[in-house]
């Protein structure tokens, strides 16, 4: 049997078919067996009942994107596949399983040398006396067999997934598993994955869940949020995990309130965060300015969707960059971080709390729907070497008014702009702060020189952060490669794939977008013949930002298109050849 490093599959169905839960079970089992993997979902705007597709890639090495050409395709109804022809292709040797249907096999499900098999789901259920809902476990059993994994692995997974249900539910699911496993009979596939020799403990986790877990790990003890696709899993995970560590959570009446609540909680000394997407980040913007001028640490995850206004909630894009970099009235410092995948969310969240708490300012973690909602199998993340958040809480020392916005260090050359922060409850530290421009003691002031001095103080923080974060980027490829590619956020995955086949290109991925790691980029660009910035938005937001920073010359190119569908490796190849300015 031919061995492959990656195996790509797609499960396509409609609401109630349970394709997502089947894919989830496959991924869990893969993680247990020592594989890496990724699962993405695509679905329409319907709440329930619409077509949906689960894309699963299982690999021997860490998986950076789900494959386009599928070796296994399951399609419950011929009509279901129509929506997804842009997102998947049946490979020449694929195994195609489809529900029993009248009519002709759609062109998009045909395979040249592979095997197409109708599956009589209803008959299997009837003969085993199983309910309709068990269909997804029957399918799971079939896929286990197709992947040449043992049935006991499936049994463990069923026990885990249905562990909290009654024993009757567990036993009927075990029967469903067995029925599915048997139905494929002696069919052998022309490909397979090598069995991993060493099995290390891994996690199967989504980007949103990773953000929530990492935040708690970094010390977050207060969360307020408003449900919004595609970020809601952060709220949901937080509501499950925060009470376990003595934290508090409020589901707010809107994003303005959510942002206000975390500012209030953080003002009280408790590390706090919220998460949102497009419309929510717009609503929060005035409050981000408040957090910055009042110098309150807050962390905001913006899990980007596509488009302005409501846009396309279920599709990812990278079009909030300008908003989080420049959005809001007045001058104010804010930090922007950009994780590239699920695992990266852990470090990004730790860094976010480290910078927010340490520098008393808002930090935005710019994730997107693709990172947030996909499941990845990742190695356990060792957080012990991550930066630990620490807030500068200085007790009052003098008898005069507490100088919350102390400027006495202004003349010192290495001052970070950070002042003492007595939290309510601290004896003798009473003071009042304001979103109004203020003096050192927090008293409102409309004096122009005072405003300039406070602006300098607040923006000093970005300078100090820039010093500390100049290495927050990664470079791939040869230093002598003539072509430079810059990618940020989720398209970094496809850029890495591209690099594997093009050794004349080198790749730069910033982990922090504001302050941008300028020195790192300048070093990286030395001696390159061409520079290209890849991103998933219509206007080329990072490209223009870097031009404004003066780090790109006139010949630099922008490779970009709107979001909606993730970049494909082949698409990137075409784009790199043609280029778009």
């Amino acid at each position, binding site marked *: 049997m031919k061995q492959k490093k990656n195996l790509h599959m797609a499960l396509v169905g409609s609401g109630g078919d349970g394709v997502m839960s089947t894919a989830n079970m496959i991924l869990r089992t893969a993680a247990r067996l020592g594989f890496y993997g990724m699962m993405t979902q695509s679905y329409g705007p319907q709440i329930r009942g619409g077509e949906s597709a689960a894309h699963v890639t299982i690999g021997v090495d860490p998986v950076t994107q789900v494959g386009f050409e599928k070796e296994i395709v399951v399609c419950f109804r011929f009509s279901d596949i129509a929506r997804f022809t842009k997102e998947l292709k049946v490979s020449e040797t694929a195994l195609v399983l489809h529900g029993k249907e009248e009519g002709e096999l759609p062109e998009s499900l045909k395979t040249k040398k592979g095997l197409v098999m109708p599956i009589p789901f209803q008959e299997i259920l009837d003969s085993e006396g199983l309910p309709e809902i068990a269909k997804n476990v029957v399918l799971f059993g079939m896929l286990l067999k197709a992947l040449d994994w043992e049935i006991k692995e499936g049994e463990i997974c069923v026990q885990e997934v249905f562990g909290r249900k009654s024993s009757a539910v567990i036993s009927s699911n075990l029967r469903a598993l067995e029925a599915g496993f048997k139905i494929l009979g002696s069919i052998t596939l022309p490909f397979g994955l090598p069995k991993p020799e060493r099995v290390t403990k891994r996690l199967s986790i989504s980007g949103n869940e990773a953000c929530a877990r990492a935040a708690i790990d970094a010390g977050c*003890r*207060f969360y*307020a949020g408003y449900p919004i696709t595609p970020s809601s899993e952060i709220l949901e995970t937080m509501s499950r995990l925060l009470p376990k560590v003595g934290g*508090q959570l*409020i589901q*707010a*009446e*809107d994003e*303005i*309130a*959510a*942002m*206000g*609540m*975390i*500012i*209030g*909680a*953080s*003002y*009280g*000394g*408790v590390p*706090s965060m919220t998460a949102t997407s497009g419309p929510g980040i717009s609503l929060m913007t*005035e*409050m981000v300015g*408040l957090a910055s001028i*009042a110098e309150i640490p807050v962390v905001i995850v913006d899990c980007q969707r596509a488009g302005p206004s409501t846009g396309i909630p279920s599709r990812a894009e990278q079009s909030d960059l300008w908003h989080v970099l420049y959005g809001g009235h007045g001058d104010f410092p804010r930090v922007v971080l950009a994780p590239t995948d699920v695992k990266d969310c852990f470090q990004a969240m730790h860094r976010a709390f480290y910078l927010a708490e340490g520098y008393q300012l808002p930090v935005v973690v710019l994730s997107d729907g693709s990172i947030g909602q996909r499941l990845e199998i990742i190695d356990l993340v060792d957080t012990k070497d991550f930066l630990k958040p620490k807030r500068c809480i200085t007790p009052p020392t003098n008898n005069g*008014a507490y100088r919350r916005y102390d400027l006495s260090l202004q003349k010192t050359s290495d001052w970070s702009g950070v002042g003492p922060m007595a939290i*309510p*409850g*601290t*004896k*003798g*530290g*009473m*003071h*009042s*702060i*304001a*979103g*109004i421009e203020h003096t050192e003691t*927090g*008293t*409102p002031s409309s004096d122009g020189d005072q405003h300039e001095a406070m602006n300098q103080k607040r923006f000093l923080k970005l300078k100090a952060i820039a010093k500390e974060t100049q290495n927050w980027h990664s470079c791939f490829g040869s230093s002598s490669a003539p072509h430079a590619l810059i990618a940020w956020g989720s398209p970094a995955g496809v850029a890495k794939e591209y690099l594997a086949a093009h050794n004349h290109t080198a790749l730069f991925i910033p982990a922090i977008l504001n302050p941008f790691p300028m020195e790192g980029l300048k070093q990286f660009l030395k001696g390159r013949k061409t520079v290209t910035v890849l991103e998933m938005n219509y206007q080329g937001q990072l490209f223009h930002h870097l031009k404004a920073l003066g780090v790109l010359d006139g010949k630099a190119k922008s490779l970009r298109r709107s979001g909606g569908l993730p970049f494909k490796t082949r698409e990137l190849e075409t784009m790199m050849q043609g280029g778009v300015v």
Partner: protein
Amino acid sequence: MITQTQQRKPIEYRNELNPVWCTGCGDYGVLKSFTRAFAKLGLPNERIAIISGIGCSSRLPGYCLTYGFNTIHGRSLPIATGLKTARSDLTVIACGGDGDAFAIGAGHIPHAIRRNPDITYFVMDNSCYGLTKGQASPTTSHEFKEMKGLIGIDEVPINPVLFVLSCGAGFIARTQSGNMAHMADMLTQAIQYPGFAFIHCLSVCVTYQGREIQEVLDQKCHPLPEDYNPSDQTQAFNIARKDPWALGVIYRRGLEATEEEPNAQ
């Protein structure tokens, strides 16, 4: 946690700053009543946090020797709610004006009420926007708008007490800025109430309503009827609908009733 270890003086809760308010502004009285109530309750200064929005009256925290946060327009409630949720050991008071509370911030009121955090919301209602120079607010009367030629003459003013009562608030009091002892008493009771407490403080803007406005208010206001029972919600609704000048605790839900409320209308 309130412990009365020693007799505190109101002045101990004032810092050295002079308020920016116009001479004769109702906010001076409110500030004094705040410090009186704190002294009466013997609250440790560092355990008090006053969260305000934006407007003349929202400058109040800046003059108290407590923790204070003059935030942005209309958002004192979410910020106060977040603070109290994270720090239940603090006495948290939200305050602001009628524009802050009933125009831009009105959407937060029903939600603060249904969450019922143990905070006091003190609204200084002078029925006008003073800081932006005299525009009509959601509580400005038809007559006043007509007299001054203000925008929005046909809009029906909000009835603050009826609004919070119908949202299910557990403690509702009305007071007025010319009666310091009464304000301090209402605030003391509100702080002691274990839940969301709302104080509607009728106040005055001498700059845009004229010097005589405090006198007019003094004449109109009167105590609740002697036989008034603040735990009777039907009575509270009647007063809220019919008498905008009655001062006192209009509604106070017994703690045992918190389970059944708040939708009795």
